């Protein structure tokens, strides 16, 4: 029945939105995976030309070198406020924030809570690797109990250094939040689910449902003192403290 022999079929190609430039991330760092997922989703939804993205202070500060978008660099932790400013004056823009866990869950707590509380139609990507990667592997608010970091050399101990903060669970309490979910980059199935979450979080903005956030459990092989593979395996343990799944989806409710 086939008349002409078909050529090889393209199964996967990295989106062109990713620049040619090789990243400064350490080998095996999940930031690269999240960047790619973002690029895929923005391409799929044809959002890139009207995207205004806000970069964090953290290893991903250089995201602007890797995703061919218009970017604004926010001071450490303030991306949600910067994005709010953009959101209010650019109703047609697609507004995206990208933050690490130190950026979002420590110094930027007030800004993320209130952007979420206002229900700003913004899509927030929250890369939780349980550590301050950029400054040399200090404890983050999300660091697991017992985890050794350069600022908890004996392992995080609650009475000294507090408990891991379930940031997305906290945000999920707020009525302004339309969508909140937690994925991971541990393996292809989880990466696929995370991609779907990011897509849904973008759609929530397009449909003006409110604030949308996807927390991505990621790794920091260097900061964790593990090989990339070990670090990915370790994400299973991490997800015991931070369970994967959809925490809020207001569309589901009504």
């Amino acid at each position: 029945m086939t008349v002409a022999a078909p050529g090889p079929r393209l199964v996967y190609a990295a989106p062109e939105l990713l620049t040619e430039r090789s990243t400064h991330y350490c080998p095996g760092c999940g930031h690269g995976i999240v960047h790619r997922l973002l690029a895929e989703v923005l391409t799929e939804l044809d959002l890139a030309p009207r995207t205004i993205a806000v970069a964090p202070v953290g290893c991903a500060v250089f995201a602007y070198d890797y995703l061919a978008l218009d970017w604004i660099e926010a001071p450490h932790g303030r991306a949600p406020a910067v994005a709010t400013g953009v959101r209010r004056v650019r109703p047609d823009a697609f507004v995206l924030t990208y933050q690490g866990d130190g950026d979002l869950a420590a110094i930027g707590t007030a800004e993320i809570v209130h952007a979420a509380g206002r229900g700003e139609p913004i899509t927030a990507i929250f890369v939780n690797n349980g550590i301050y990667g950029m400054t040399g592997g200090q404890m983050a608010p999300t660091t697991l109990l017992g985890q050794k970091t350069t600022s908890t050399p004996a392992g995080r101990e609650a009475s000294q250094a507090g408990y891991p903060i379930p940031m997305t669970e906290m945000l999920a309490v707020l009525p302004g939040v339309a969508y909140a979910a937690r994925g991971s980059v541990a393996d292809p199935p989880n990466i696929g689910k995370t991609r779907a979450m990011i897509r849904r979080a973008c759609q929530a903005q397009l449909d003006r449902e409110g604030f949308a956030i996807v927390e991505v459990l990621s790794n920091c092989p260097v900061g964790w003192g593990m090989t990339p593979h070990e670090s990915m395996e370790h994400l299973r343990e991490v997800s015991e403290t931070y369970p994967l799944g959809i925490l809020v989806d207001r569309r589901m409710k009504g």
Partner: protein
Amino acid sequence: MERSIVFAGFGGQGLLFAGQVLARAAIRDGLETFWIPSYGPEMRGGTASCTVIVGDAEIGSPVVDRYDMAVVMNPPSLTRFAPRLATDGLLVVNASLVAEPAPVPVHEELRIDCTRLAAEAGDDKLVSVVALGALVGRTGVVTADSVRQAMREMVGAKRPQALDADLAAFDAGLAVGAASPMKIGA
């Protein structure tokens, strides 16, 4: 008198450690010293370097216009630091990774097969320790005993099992440095 030494190469080559050993040895010799890395955890991978200044009085400027000695452990470092050597400077080159000649004429050059010597000493990662040995062997900028003492203090405490290899690597370099025929220019 002050003498400045730069150690430069890839991130994993142990350059900062070698520089610190040298600085500690200088203290044990009763000298003054200053050690400064090219810092920046934000810049992952790529090259690393550190500068050590040794002198008999308090060290003045931490910024060095011209280095008295340069230990270059990979090709980019050769390109970068050979031109910054003083006119009577010494260049120590890790021959295991660097085949190219220096891009500018240098007064004195020492090429060492650091990887091989390090492997023979028990750990092929100790390339910078070998190079340090050669540097000390050639110049006597610090005494070999002080270097050994410094390594004992730094390595002995935390990883006593590693100390032997370190000492062996240093001695291997030292021997080459002391014996190696001078090679002028390139």
